[in-house]
């Protein structure tokens, strides 16, 4: 491979390249449309042509290497999709627990590999369905869970020992994990056999998605509680999925998504090490969750850079010894923010390109959005088409035949390097400002994202950036004839009845006692997981549990960030 050449020969070649490049540039400039800006989705300039000059700093073994080997630029498994295809995991959940259970049985029968639960907003925020703040929200963006009774219904007839379940829940994540454990226990499946992922990433809530309950310090403490509990009791469970998805959806650029997500991850790692956990004990169970946006090459470069940056830091900064601690494994979801209400069928096409970038970037699992998501919750038909998009990708396009096929591309490698450098620059800035938590408090990360979102929108408003169907190729008098799934208001009533039922069958003294024990555990700074499990077992409601913790931890108010 590496030929030994003398210095003169090398500089001669470089000169030849420079000369050839200049000649080409003159020819190309003559016919280039100079009125158009050539930028990525993240508004980054792109050169018209990439050559070996853009990749000359790369040392193949050091920077790219082999799949399954440090620094994992090409993927975390030696055989990648030849060994095991990515997990097709469609996120769903709506209305009542019974409706959600029905959708799960359907999706599993259609070849989906794992379940992914979407909860409604009151559940995500720790409010019961009968709370005044839940008015109009129950069952709207996902399934409502108030007590263990609801979780029992959601997983009725599904063997929790056989499937893996991902739960998109953050502020009250430990409560839902506790409920899942108790449902499994009632099925006779012990916690150590449970497989799945808890999103459980509160930092990105403060940064982007804004579904928080407590202030950052106690919230991160609760997460470390679950990491500690999982490490000891649930060896197959991923206790956290450190998420850039929502950061991107809030308007971040690809580099911001990458940098802020990794910085969040390193914060959890540092806090867990402070708790006294051995990095090699918990790091192999950490996973990440990224967005797949429309700029095909930029996205692929992002995933490749993510693996390389993470491996380097885990190995050299956090001193992890186990190779499994160095590997960044991730789930991907196609970009909801790239979808549009106008000509919604186009969303199928967008999602397909995005899905392909995720697969070429080496994702471990994938959710493809439904075309009707900017209009409502997915209908059955749209949900099935979204799953089929992945099946076509896996079975018909040939992308799985060879591993990391874009490695060595001058453009993709140069972009991967650029991503890494820009990401490191953000890390330095975050450090200078006192770390992620301080940056959140000061609104720095939020402002960076808001600025990027505004830049993007102005490009669209000025038509520098064309979005098909929105500011170009518009259909006049467009009639949308996609069937729209509506959740009616009766769900709230059914949930209220379900709470009533739970309250009628439970032992109130035990509820009071377990809640008091939980409060005390919070005050004593103990690991809260066992106490929360005791609470849910008594059919204590989500709201009661979160309120008890609020009594000790208080509530968070956002900084203005304007």
């Amino acid at each position: 491979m590496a030929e030994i050449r003398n210095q003169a020969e090398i500089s001669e070649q470089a000169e030849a390249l420079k000369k050839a490049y200049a000649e080409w540039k003159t020819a190309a400039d003559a016919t280039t449309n100079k009125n158009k800006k050539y930028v990525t989705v993240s508004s980054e300039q792109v050169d018209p042509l990439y050559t070996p000059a853009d990749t000359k700093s790369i040392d193949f073994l050091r920077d790219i290497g082999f799949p399954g080997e440090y620094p994992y630029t090409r993927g975390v498994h030696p055989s990648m999709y030849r060994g095991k295809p990515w997990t097709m995991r469609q996120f769903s959940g709506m209305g009542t627990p019974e409706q959600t259970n029905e959708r799960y049985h359907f999706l599993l029968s259609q070849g989906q590999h794992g379940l992914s639960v979407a909860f409604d907003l009151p559940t995500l925020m720790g409010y019961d369905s009968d709370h005044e703040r839940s008015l109009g929200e129950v069952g709207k963006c996902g399934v409502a869970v108030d007590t263990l009774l609801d979780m029992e219904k959601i997983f009725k007839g599904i063997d929790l020992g056989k499937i893996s379940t991902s739960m998109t829940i953050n502020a009250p994540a430990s409560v839902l994990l506790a409920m899942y454990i108790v449902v499994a226990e009632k099925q006779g499946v012990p916690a150590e056999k449970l497989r799945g992922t808890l999103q459980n990433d509160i930092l990105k809530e403060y940064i982007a998605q804004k579904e928080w309950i407590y202030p950052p310090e106690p919230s991160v403490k609760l997460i470390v509680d679950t990491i500690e509990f999982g490490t000891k009791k649930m060896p197959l469970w991923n206790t956290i999925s450190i998420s850039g998805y929502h950061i991107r959806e809030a308007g971040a650029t690809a580099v911001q998504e990458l940098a802020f997500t990794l910085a969040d991850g390193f914060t959890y790692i540092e806090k867990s090490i402070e708790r006294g956990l051995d990095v090699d004990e918990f790091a192999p169970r950490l996973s990440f969750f990224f967005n797949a946006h429309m700029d095909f090459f930029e996205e692929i470069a992002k995933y490749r850079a993510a693996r390389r940056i993470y491996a380097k830091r885990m190995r050299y900064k956090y001193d992890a010894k186990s190779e499994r601690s160095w590997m960044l494994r991730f789930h991907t979801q196609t970009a909801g923010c790239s979808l549009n209400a106008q000509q919604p069928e186009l969303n199928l096409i967008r999602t397909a390109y995005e899905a392909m970038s995720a697969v070429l970037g080496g994702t471990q699992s994938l959710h493809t959005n439904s075309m009707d998501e900017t209009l409502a919750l997915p209908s059955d038909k749209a949900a099935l088409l979204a799953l089929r998009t992945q099946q076509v990708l896996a079975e018909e396009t040939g992308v799985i035949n060879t591993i990391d096929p874009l490695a060595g591309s001058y453009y993709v490698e140069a972009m991967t390097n650029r991503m890494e450098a820009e990401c490191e620059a953000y890390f330095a800035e975050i450090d200078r400002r006192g770390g992620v938590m301080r940056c959140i408090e000061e609104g720095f990360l939020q402002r960076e994202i808001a600025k990027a979102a505004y830049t993007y929108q102005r490009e669209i408003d000025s038509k520098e950036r064309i979005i098909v169907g929105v500011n170009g190729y518009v259909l006049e008098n467009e009639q949308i004839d996609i069937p729209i799934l509506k959740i009616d208001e009766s769900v709230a009533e059914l949930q209220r009845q379900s709470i009533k039922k739970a309250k009628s069958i439970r032992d109130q003294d035990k509820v009071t006692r377990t809640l008091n024990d939980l409060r005390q555990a919070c005050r004593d700074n103990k690991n809260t997981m066992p106490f929360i499990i005791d609470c849910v077992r008594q059919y204590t409601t989500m709201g009661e549990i979160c309120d008890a913790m609020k009594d000790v931890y208080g509530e968070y108010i956002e900084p203005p960030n304007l």
Partner: protein
Amino acid sequence: MSVFDDFVRRDKRALARIITHIENRRENYRQLLAAVSRLPHQGYRIGITGPPGSGKSTLVDALVLRYIQQGLRVGVIAIDPSSPFTGGALLGDRIRMQHLVNRDSVFIRSMASRGESGGLAAATRDVTKVLDAFGMDLIIIETVGIGQIELDIVEACDSVVVVLVPESGDMIQTMKAGLMEIADIFCVNKIDRPGADRLLSILNSMVHERQTASSVEIRAVGTNGMNGEGVDSLAEAIEKHRGVITTGGELERRRGSQLKAEIVHAVRDRVVRQLEETIDFDGQFEHVSRQLASGELDLYSAADMIYDRYFRK
């Protein structure tokens, strides 16, 4: 004058509309202001200023919550800068005042600086008077930054709190004189951060030096607006300052000189406006400008010529 009648009956909607009218200097605003000024008023004015990000709004939230729990009625004016390029403004102080939402005894008004230094100070003073006449026991004026405009604004307050954060250490060294001139109370917010103790001790020694020169004691307190730590001490410091200046006659002296300053400001504003509008009354302004441009005249001689013509007209 039905809106005015509603105002007298303490209707908040009427208060809000009158403020808009006066802030925008709409037709008849002076008669309106005069009518408002004739109503009984005895509010006490507290100015809160400090650099961006020092947590002023959170402190105001905590302070005002305390005051209304004591049965007091409180008006808040929250001032943020306008964009010098577009004239627009994003006013976000309310986000941090969530404990004051839906309270009968609180009225919060956000104001943009609108880029006119003299004008903002005057408008703020007028709005303060309106809130006072509405029957507010306390009027709190929150403004960002410690520049000349902010000085003009807080000058019109009875007690002035300067909020700093532990990171402000370097800044206060360079601004020492200006800060000492306006602050009645220093508040080091975000006291949980490193450097807080150091800043407090610097402030305390600064305050100590000045004590000999003035009869009124300045204090420095530490707070954490997020969890309410130290807010009691801040309220106490304000109360103490109020007590001292009220009984010692300082409050009357201050208000007397404030009123004089107001008259001077108002006259100056009128003179400046009139000067700008009519400076070329006899066509000489253009002529003198050309002479300046060609080098026949220097700036100060040009100014002398215009001044003499204008004021002897």
